[in-house]
């Protein structure tokens, strides 16, 4: 690593001032689990690291406007362990549980992960499917960016060098809605996905019509990819088993994977279709499970306890 300064501002105002001083030569560091590797490999050579580790009050996870607000400095482990999220948004609990290992999750932050923008990450597809937004703050104020528009290229986002991800907001889910995130891991449990798929499905109150759906994929392009054409096949249509397979087929047209040690491009494309179908099926199963819990909370409690995972 080339020599660099290490600054420890105590609040956002000081962070902004330090970023201004060093311009685009500075890099923000929170958990450092990705940035330190890139610095070791000399892919990134900042003249100054601006640490966010002494900035307080940006790691809360709370209900707000019916949705959920997650501070940019919340660690992956804090998200994964939040009882509020487990209750309100188990899809995110599961998604963040899938990230790397506990050692990484103890350090890596929600905002840092998003700013890193590796298309193989787990949270982006889920957050896109959930319709989440990102709040980016600079000395000039803050702006809200839909997750859909956040990623622009491999390791690239719409963030300016002086902006910090201070918050992620997941809006309130409609009634009869549930989601699922599936990660295809043919190698090891801590690996990046060969293909990942997230789906959030909404049924009408009769549970017979798909009133809304959002689908996103990871590891199959230079950014996470939203499969809008696949969504269009399902939206407003009657719920039937073949429809999910059709959406899976359509989702294959949206992806552009590369061949690597996790599989050939052709194989990943095929698996993208399979995992979109399975994610939709799991989202549907989750809606039905929620309906059962609502109808008979006691019986449902028994079944969830049995399947309890630490």
């Amino acid at each position, binding site marked *: 690593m080339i020599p660099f300064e290490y600054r420890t501002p105590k609040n956002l105002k000081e962070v902004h001032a330090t970023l201004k001083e060093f311009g685009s030569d500075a890099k923000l560091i929170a958990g450092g*689990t990705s940035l330190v590797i890139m610095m070791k490999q000399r892919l990134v050579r900042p003249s100054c*690291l601006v640490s966010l580790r002494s900035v307080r009050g940006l790691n809360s996870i709370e209900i707000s406007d019916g949705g959920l607000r997650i501070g940019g400095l919340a660690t992956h482990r804090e998200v994964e362990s939040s009882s509020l999220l487990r209750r309100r948004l188990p899809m995110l609990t599961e998604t963040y549980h899938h990230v*790397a*290992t*506990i050692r*990484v999750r103890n350090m890596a932050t929600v905002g840092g992960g998003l700013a890193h923008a590796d298309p193989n990450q787990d949270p982006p597809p889920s957050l896109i499917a959930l319709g989440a937004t990102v709040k980016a703050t600079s000395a000039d104020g803050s702006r809200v960016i839909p997750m859909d528009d956040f990623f622009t290229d491999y390791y690239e986002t719409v963030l300016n060098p002086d902006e910090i991800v201070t918050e992620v907001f997941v809006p309130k889910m409609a009634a009869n809605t549930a989601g699922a995130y599936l990660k295809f891991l043919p190698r090891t449990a801590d690996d990046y996905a060969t293909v990942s798929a997230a789906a959030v499905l909404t049924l009408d109150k009769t549970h017979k019509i798909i009133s809304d759906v959002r689908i996103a994929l990871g590891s199959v392009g230079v950014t996470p990819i939203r499969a809008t054409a696949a969504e269009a096949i399902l939206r407003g249509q009657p719920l039937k088993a073949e429809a999910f397979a059709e959406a899976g087929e359509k989702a294959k047209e949206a992806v552009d994977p590369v061949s690597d040690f996790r599989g050939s491009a052709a194989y990943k494309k095929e698996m993208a279709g399979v995992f979109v179908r399975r994610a939709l099926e799991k989202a549907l199963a989750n809606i039905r499970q929620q309906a059962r819990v609502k109808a008979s909370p006691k019986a449902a409690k028994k079944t969830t306890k049995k399947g309890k995972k*630490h």
Partner: protein
Amino acid sequence: MNKKIKLRVNGKKHELEVPTSRLLIDCLRYDLGLTGTKEGCSVGVCGACAVLMDGEMISACLTLAVMADGHDITTVEGLAKNGELNPVQKSFIQYGGFQCGICTPGQVIAATALLAENPRPNEDEIKDWMMGNLCRCTGYYKIIESIQKAHQFVK
């Protein structure tokens, strides 16, 4: 560029001046002489460099020493109290939880962190927690058994 930092390692306070690029693993091994913590993959995957920071396990190879400034670090050397090994260490010896030994400091640190959260983990919980600690001798069965039986050594 250097920076002065304060660390508490295994209960002992240290004040050092380190280059900002110094990794925590190198600080522990070369500046403090605590060579129990090993460096394996250098990218946070293998778990050999696992240490506890304020009780939470982290990869010392992905952490800059300056990031640990003001924090409490526990390495494998700090697990024994007054010369007595901790329950995980005793169990690894009793039930053969290691072969060549290179991954063992990381395994023992990770298992100690697990038992602090969950004193009687089942096999699935152990596998889920320990999946980030690799053993090239593939001695996993004995490692899992050692962790599962470590509670026997808790007084």
